[in-house]
């Protein structure tokens, strides 16, 4: 395992991040959009950890922990908002949330 260099890690991280971005941009289901955002953040975590290993620092690992905590808080707020809208619309389809437009 030890010989895994920086670039494969970055490649995987970019792949995860890109998948997340694609998901946010193309999916209409809010829950899947939320999951895609989590995927983006996981890609970032991988990049932080990869860089930290490459640089031989602890900082990057600590950042990943902070990102995880923030991601959890973000998910909690996001799901609460989805629930709130679901009560109004009985739908999780982003296209139906079109009251404000123009």
């Amino acid at each position, binding site marked *: 395992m030890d*010989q*895994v*260099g920086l*670039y*494969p890690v970055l*490649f*995987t991280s970019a792949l995860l991040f890109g998948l997340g971005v694609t998901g946010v941009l193309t999916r209409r289901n809010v829950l899947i959009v939320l999951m895609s955002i989590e995927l983006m953040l996981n890609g970032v975590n991988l990049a932080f950890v990869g860089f930290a290993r490459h640089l031989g620092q602890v900082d990057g690992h*600590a950042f990943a*922990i902070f990102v*995880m*905590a923030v991601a*959890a*808080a973000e*998910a*909690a707020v996001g*799901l*609460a908002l989805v*629930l709130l809208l679901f009560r109004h619309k009985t739908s999780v389809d982003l296209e139906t949330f079109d009251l404000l437009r123009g």
Partner: protein
Amino acid sequence: MDPAWLSALTFLGVAFVVAAGALVGARLLGVKSRVDVPTRRDTYECGEEPEGVAWVRFHPRYYLVALLFVLFDVETVFILPWALNLDDLGLLALVEMVVFVGILLLGWAYAVRKGAIEWQ
């Protein structure tokens, strides 16, 4: 090629083969029924008769509990490295953690007071 790259690509390749293999294998080996028997579209339940539909809606109170769990659960991630290094960090770190946990406890008390944990 750099062996590190090789391992990443192998991993990717195996993932693809497993995913595609499952689909292709099912198509090749699976028994195709030409008549539409009533049980054909049932959820597979290890031979048990399925009861009800799979698309049941969960009551929102599950979400509330799940959200609280996620929030308080993730905070452990800060406590673990702290606990491992407490000897080196000294008294100050202890005070810091007391403040941190104190704020968390306040949040917990808030949730209790709002009735978020009660199962109405």
